[in-house]
């Protein structure tokens, strides 16, 4: 009897397992394909044009400091606080210029800020919809009034863009919103693109930016790596990059064209489609448990132990 029941148990585990396996296998096959909306707003950053003046950083802080909870960061040597000297994106900095220098001849500036993905991981994982993607502009926005501070967006973002205010008792997430509530509303352009003196940041619709980038690649094929970073990375981003050096050296990760959020959502949706699986599981288990209980009540209390032995 013992052997028998163990087999039954394995059957049960196996059945549950097989269901899940089938579900996840099926989900990997069912490729819905992501629709790319090229009318969304974005920016094209050309690292070969950037002169590293950081006017974009300073404009970003000037414009967004109150609304975006940004502040100046002191460098260790600068006790008087004369300069804003962030070393990385942080809870007080949402855009940043860095220099990557391999050799005196091989170097490049690079700008970090939100990529405004076509299929953003942060929006996909936020449990309370504090991260949202605007349907028309495609801006990935953050609402601190709903955010619970779980930092799942940080875990999910392949570019490590959302930053958390670790030092504050009442912290929030900080990330670029394309000046949605400040410069974009007032002047129709993001502050960084507006002030760039070298024309390294171009603001516009994604299709215009892609066209421009392709033209630049065509006109100066020697100057650039023949790749528009963000065109296909992680399902496509609205912030696009051109550069003269391999992008992974500039801190932009190699990402497959499939959006990470597509992969995870497919599995999650397959398991929880219409909430059928959990309800079915519950009803089946209820049926079994009630049946078992009835059996026991029929046999009486003492017999319950005896029954197990044969």
């Amino acid at each position: 009897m013992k052997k028998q029941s163990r087999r039954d148990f394995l059957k049960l585990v196996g059945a549950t397992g097989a269901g899940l396996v089938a579900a996840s296998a099926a989900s990997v096959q069912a490729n819905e394909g992501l629709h790319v909306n090229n009318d969304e707003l974005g920016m094209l950053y050309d690292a070969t044009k950037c002169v590293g003046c950081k006017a974009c950083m300073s404009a970003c802080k000037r414009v967004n400091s109150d609304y975006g909870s940004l502040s100046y960061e002191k460098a260790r040597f600068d006790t008087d606080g004369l300069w804003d000297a962030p070393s990385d994106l942080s809870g007080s900095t949402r855009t940043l210029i860095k220099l990557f220098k391999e050799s005196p001849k091989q170097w490049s500036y690079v700008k970090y800020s939100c990529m405004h993905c076509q299929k953003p991981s942060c929006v996909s994982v936020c449990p309370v919809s504090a991260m949202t993607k605007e349907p028309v502009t495609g801006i990935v926005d953050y609402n601190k009034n709903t955010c619970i501070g779980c930092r799942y967006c940080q875990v999910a973002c392949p570019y490590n863009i959302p930053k958390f205010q670790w030092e504050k008792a009442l912290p929030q997430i900080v990330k670029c919103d394309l000046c949605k509530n400040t410069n974009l509303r007032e002047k129709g352009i993001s502050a960084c693109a507006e002030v760039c003196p070298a024309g390294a940041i171009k603001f516009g619709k994604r299709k215009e930016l892609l066209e421009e980038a392709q033209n630049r690649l065509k006109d100066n094929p020697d100057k650039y790596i023949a790749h528009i970073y963000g065109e296909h990375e992680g399902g496509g981003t609205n912030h696009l990059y051109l550069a003269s050096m391999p992008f992974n050296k500039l801190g932009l990760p190699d990402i497959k064209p499939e959006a990470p959020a597509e992969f995870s959502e497919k599995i999650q949706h397959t398991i929880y489609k219409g909430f059928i699986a959990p309800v079915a599981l519950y009803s089946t288990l209820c049926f079994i448990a009630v049946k078992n209980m009835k059996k026991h009540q029929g046999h009486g209390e003492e017999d319950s132990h005896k029954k197990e032995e044969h």
Partner: protein
Amino acid sequence: MAHSEEYQKLEGRIFTRSFFVLLAVVLVGFFFVGVRFVKGIGAVSNMSDGYPWGIWITYDVATGTAIACGGYAVAILVYIRNRMQYHPLIRSAILTSMFGYGLAGFSVMVDLGRPWNAYNFFIPSKWQANSAMFEVALCVMAYSTVLIIEFVPAILTSIEKSKWNRMNAIRNWLHPRIAPDQQTMVDTLEMVRLGAAWLKPRLNKVLIFFIVLGITLPTMHQSSLGSLLLIASTKLHPLWHTGFLPLLFLLNCIFIGYSIAILESLISSYSFKRPYEVEELSGLAGLVPYITVIWFCVMIGDLVSRGQLAAAFRFDFYSRFFLSDFLLVAIGSLILFSKKLRRSPRWLFVSASMIVFGGALYRFNVYLIGFNPGKGWRYFPSFAEVMITVGIVALEILAYKVFVALFPVLPNTSGHGAKKHGKAKATQPAADAAFQPAGAQLEAVTVKTHN
């Protein structure tokens, strides 16, 4: 369904020396919790924008709830697999599950940056069904409630049988002016007792539906704990990042659940000086290797299909952690395949601990060790961060010790044994009945001298 005589309260004092040691640890932990709320998370933890989840999520939530799966695993066995002889184990398993989940919820509130916004989980317009975190949060909240409901019968029994000695003592100790009138108090307590007596049979009738809910919910959120890391495809090492994470996490929590139920029973038998439940435990232990074998099959099959098997034997940082969790669980399972070793409390203890450690290490691998956000990021928990986790675990043990003394939780050794051997096992020789406690005592002595 009234199994009250199956369980008994633990006789003895509550305020022992270990109680105060644990209390001290709890207070240190809560001091740092206070610091965290005044000065921010950065003041107590080493978490960073690269490693936004530290040990609070990795241990307290992801691993702690798996360790708290004893209630889930034993409930499957008892109510679905219909093996009622394990019923005596279930109440203590549910109690530890209750504390495990409750305190996981507590540490989430410590970990959340903006906990005052957590009410958004209850606002349908804010729901985000794509998020595995949303699923985990709702399921864990629901399951904690279910666990409390499952534990209510123990409290009701306790109320019914209580003579209110302590309550009377407090009343007598209070100044007559502020103490309630003797008659009023007796009346009120009688009302409470009647209420409990009224509620108990009604609750018992519907309890099975809550118990089944308590099996469904962990199936959902334990797999979703694996789904949480599906999105981190660029950060999680390919040894662990797979579409099978939900299934692997589900199987992982089941074998951890059985192993921890074994460990809990052994440890409480040992420390409360009660006979070991060898019969039940060896049966329970017999199930574990079958689940771990399925787990290994899924894991290795997946590695082969993704062409990552070689990465497991590269003996670099990641491969070493992968192999250690693999070997811990594998060796623990091998021990449990032996019928003879399964009957020895000492080997049960060794193998169950190995499986729990290995299974927990797997979760650490997925959440922290295999997680690499990019160059320049490092994480090792700070002292204060560890103390908060340790304080929470200490609170769990403390509460367990208090609860087993206040409520009938532990298996009733005298009544249970007598019933089992006297009536049901009439065919078995009587010597066999005597053998079990004696053997257990012998083992207890050997374990003691061994330590």
